[in-house]
């Protein structure tokens, strides 16, 4: 589904990666590892089409736009969890009703927080609002930048279960994480930098 061919990216006179080629097929998880500044996020942004200063080719074979969860949560402090999620989900898919949105919030453990402003939430809860999109939207490919940061242990387990379900149904999953995804299989790992 994703074919990357001879990808080379230079930033600040330093090669982040050179001649990187790999293929990720349906039902596969690719974990990107590497130290700080190794170029993980840059690679993810290239795969998502958000960064264009590279040579080589990236081609997706998808019927729908991949779901990209970036470093920043994309959540407005002045909007409630429900309002934020409705708008974020609306970007990808029209006509999602309130009950479905609330259901997705409940899935990430935010039942009862639907009308709380995100500015009054903890970092982890704001992250969960964004992660709720994984329960709400149909996308063949997920591109996740450190989805586990600021999430508690129970939340990590639930998220891993959701990832497993996505892979089992033939989805593609590309994820940056410093954590070993022990429960998700089959997993491949791409290590950047030394």
């Amino acid at each position, binding site marked *: 589904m994703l074919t990357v061919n001879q990808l080379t990216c230079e930033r600040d006179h330093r090669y982040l990666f050179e001649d990187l080629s790999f293929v990720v097929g349906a039902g596969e998880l690719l974990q990107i590892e590497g130290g700080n500044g190794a170029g993980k996020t840059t690679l993810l*942004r290239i795969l*998502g089409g*958000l*960064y*264009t*200063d590279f040579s080589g080719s990236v081609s997706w074979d998808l019927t*729908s*736009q991949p779901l*990209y969860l*970036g*470093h*920043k*949560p*994309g*959540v*407005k*402090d*002045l*909007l409630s969890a429900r*309002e934020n999620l*409705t*708008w*974020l989900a*609306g*970007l*990808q*898919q*029209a*006509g999602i009703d309130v009950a479905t949105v609330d259901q997705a919030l409940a899935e990430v453990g935010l039942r009862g927080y639907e009308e709380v*402003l995100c500015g009054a939430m903890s970092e982890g809860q704001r992250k969960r609002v964004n992660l709720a999109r994984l329960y709400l939207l149909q996308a063949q490919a997920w591109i996740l930048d450190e989805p586990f940061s600021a999430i508690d242990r129970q939340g990590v387990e639930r998220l891993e279960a959701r990832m497993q379900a996505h892979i089992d149904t033939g989805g593609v999953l590309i994820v940056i994480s410093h954590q070993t995804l022990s429960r998700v299989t089959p997993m491949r790992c791409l290590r950047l930098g030394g």
Partner: protein
Amino acid sequence: MSLFVATIRRELLIAYRNPADLLNPLCFFVIVVSLFPLGIGPTPSMLQQIAPGVIWVAALLATLLSLELLFRTDYDDGSLEQMTFSDAPLLWLVLGKVFSHWLMTGLPLALLSPLLGLMLFLTPSGTEALLWSLLLGTPILSLLGSIGASLTVGLRKGGLLIAILILPLFVPVLILATSMVQTGIQGGDYTGHMLWLGVLLALSVGMAPLATSAGIRISVSH
């Protein structure tokens, strides 16, 4: 299209919960215009002569002041990145954002202007021309300004850069609008001016969102 409405709803909701950002340009506008009679002296003929220029320049600067914030918070919290990932064209989102910007700055400025016109001894026909010129002109300012805002959002301290990028584009609107108000004061027919402002508005509705979308993509991809 539904996203256009959803975006406007979202913007208005955010503004409603944080009214300070909304009031800033309006206060600026009122303060600047009301200082002129104090500084120049209360001679009606003099004030009437400078009124179109003063009110329009103040409105233009007030708009410029608010433009820096147009995409700032969306950029900082990652919403802008998500917007470029939308299945719907970015164009609708941009139009929604710019339209809500106008609803919250341009429209109140225009509605306030008759009051300020009174302060500067504008004739009734001049006030009418002023109101129409602002109603037609301020959306052009919001649309053109969004181009500058989208290009500078990735930079810290982009405020001055927006001004340098955008002011040359604002000048034709300023010239046309002030001469429209002058004609109105003299009791002349300003239909021609209005049509020209309408032309500029139609042009910028068609073109500016394209440029702004491209600008957002550039800013987000760095």
